[in-house]
């Protein structure tokens, strides 16, 4: 058990920091410090490509596919320095954290060649088509249909909560390809190009006035037969494997964004005197502790190579960060007082902290609600009886 980094790691850290700081002071100065996921999409796609050119796009991937084969320590360091430099989040996070690893694990050699280098290069932006209206957290009840027709998959149906679909190039879709099948059986996992007549995207405006999420409609949308990952009927298995990738190194980058939010809150508390309030002090200390524990939980989970046992740190990670962030949003508002409830301009647009307060209500819902997370933890982590499906 060792937490410190080696001298070589620290050199690598300096290299990351230098490069990132130079970029954020230079050509990409204009996007430094952006926190909103939907802001400046075109410039941020250019940033993805810049990362790709310099081989910083997916450093943990094999060199063959555009990565650097980076060690865990290096990945940790890059994620930390990335956020420390004020670089905005990756608009292709679905591509690099979910689609890429899925293709790496389950795709054919040809699919790897077709997709991985372009993802690593920041040229192919992915989004995810899992949830459907009427089946938010219940992935097994997918109704979007896929059928093979003349060597092409033809897809009809509707997905919802397809984050950033409006700026993406590809979508991966779980479809029901076996007529009359139910639950996790008969599902197939397809990669589809978005720019086609059969796919229509409509934004969903959220509580904070922004529209990150979308509804995506499929009307005889098409993709080639070999755009399927795995085999017909393997969709569930792949979707489940993919959920495991959600707990990768990217969590550390996300945490650094949380660090920035907490630092902004601390600055606000100092500025308006809330930092002298003993109750606020206790809550800030708790938030600080929670964030640190998130980091060390993630390091435990990433350091763990024994996959024979349930990894408690991994299993509890989603609810932990989502709950932490929701509390942070409430704390931020209590620090700001009524001033947090008014925006600067005439538009309904919110600064980091009030936006955190509003947006974090979604954190405990998407990607499996806190309720679903507790089911998983109790059933997989503690071996409690499974919640029965009904037949309504």
């Amino acid at each position, binding site marked *: 058990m060792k937490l410190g980094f080696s001298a070589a790691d620290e050199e690598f850290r300096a290299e990351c920091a230098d490069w990132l700081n130079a970029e954020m002071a230079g050509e990409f100065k204009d996007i430094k410090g952006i926190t909103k996921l939907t802001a400046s999409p075109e410039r941020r796609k250019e940033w993805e490509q810049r990362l790709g050119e310099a081989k910083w796009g997916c450093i943990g991937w094999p060199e063959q596919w555009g990565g650097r084969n980076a060690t865990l320590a290096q990945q940790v360091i890059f994620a930390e320095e990335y956020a420390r430099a004020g670089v905005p989040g990756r608009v292709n996070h679905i591509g690099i954290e979910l689609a890429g690893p899925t293709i790496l694990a389950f795709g054919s050699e040809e699919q790897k060649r077709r997709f991985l280098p372009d993802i690593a290069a920041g040229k192919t932006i992915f989004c995810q088509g899992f949830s459907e209206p009427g089946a938010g957290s219940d992935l097994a009840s997918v109704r979007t249909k896929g059928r093979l027709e003349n060597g092409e998959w033809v897809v009809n149906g509707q997905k919802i909560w397809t984050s950033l679909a409006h700026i993406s190039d590809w979508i991966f879709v779980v479809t029901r390809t076996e007529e009359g099948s139910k639950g996790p059986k008969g599902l197939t996992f397809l990669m589809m190009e978005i720019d086609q007549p059969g796919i229509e995207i409509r934004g969903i405006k959220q509580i904070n006035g922004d529209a990150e999420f979308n509804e995506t409609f499929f009307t005889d949308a098409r993709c080639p037969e070999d755009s399927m990952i795995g085999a017909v009927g393997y969709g569930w298995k792949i979707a489940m494997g993919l959920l495991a990738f959600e707990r990768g190194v990217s969590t550390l980058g996300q945490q650094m964004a949380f660090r920035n939010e907490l630092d902004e809150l601390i600055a606000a508390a100092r500025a308006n005197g809330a930092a002298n309030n003993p109750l606020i002090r206790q809550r800030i200390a708790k938030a600080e502790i929670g964030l640190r524990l998130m980091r060390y939980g993630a390091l435990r989970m990433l350091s763990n190579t024994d996959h024979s046992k349930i990894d408690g740190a991994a299993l509890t990670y989603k609810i932990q960060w989502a709950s932490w962030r929701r509390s942070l949003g409430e704390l931020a508002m209590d620090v700001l007082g009524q001033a947090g409830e008014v925006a600067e301009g005439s538009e309904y647009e919110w600064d980091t902290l009030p936006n955190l307060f509003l947006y974090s*209500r979604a954190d405990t*819902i998407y990607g499996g609600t806190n309720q679903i997370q507790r089911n998983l933890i109790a059933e997989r982590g503690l071996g409690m009886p499974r919640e*029965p499906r009904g037949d309504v």
Partner: protein
Amino acid sequence: MEFVFTEEQQMIGETARAFFAENATSERTRKAMAAGGPDAGIDRALWTAFCQELGLSGIGIPESAGGAGLGLVELAIIAEAAGAQVAALPMLGSLALSAQAIAAGGSAEQQAAHLPALLSGEVIAGYVHDAAITADGTSLTGAAGFVAHGGSAQLFVVTSNTGAWLVAADAPGVTVTPLTTMDQTRPYARVTLDGAKGEPLADPAAAIAAAHRAGFVAVAAEALGGAQAALDRTVAYAKERVQFGRPIGSFQAYKHRLADLMIEIEQARSAVYWAACAVDEGSDEAELAVHAAKSFAADTFFLCAGNMIQLHGGIGFTWEHDAHLYFKRARAIQSMLGSGEWHRERIATMILGEVA
């Protein structure tokens, strides 16, 4: 000793609930939210109907002052009904705070000059309170940052901790800056007084005390109505919505969450009507009760509205669904007129004394 509504109180409640349920619809509220200028966050037609057709605006104002008599219990009943629909109305600033202040602390002339127009809804008043407002003769200087519906007001009741004045919104030295506000059903304005002329109310202490007590009780009642509505709507959704082949309301963890909300709401209900009664009866518990009601009901509403979002899943955090209206109103009620922490510290001082 009988802690249930009288028949008259039940009737007022039924009337108010029916009125708001029918008229303060989501569609109309959203139109008011989107409006700018003096109509921002106000459904004008609803306000006129409430004041003039329904005639409930005078409740809690003595008949001698042109009101309908009755007391805070009845005012709370109405505020609860309005809160249940997150109605976009200037009820808090104009009636619960300003009209109460004038009725309690204004001279007969001041009452006669202003209350009829406030009660008819023709004039909207905003309540401007800041401890640091100073008076040089009748010339007022100071500012308050979060005046509810301040951008729609023609008249301000201005109070410091010791003085109370009437100030015309268009008087020289008055600057009103409407603010983009999280709760768009009750937008704030910043009101700055730079040597503005104020007409002193006859009994400022009475005005301030009445405004604050009525304000605390009114927002607490609004919170109660909002909390109950958030629960009711979530219960309805839980019975309809099917996930994993079952109505989500059949999941025990979901049920228990709803039960926890009901437990809080029942206490908030006791708090609101205890406080209203205590004020109306001049009980020596009144001071403690209004602080308890404001802090407890606000927290209850926030808890319920937050859970309303959570328990609706994805749809719950969309703009299209009404959950965010409740959520933002709940947050606003928590922070306005003194935070929960402030109200509880008042209570702590009553029972423990000041910090040594």
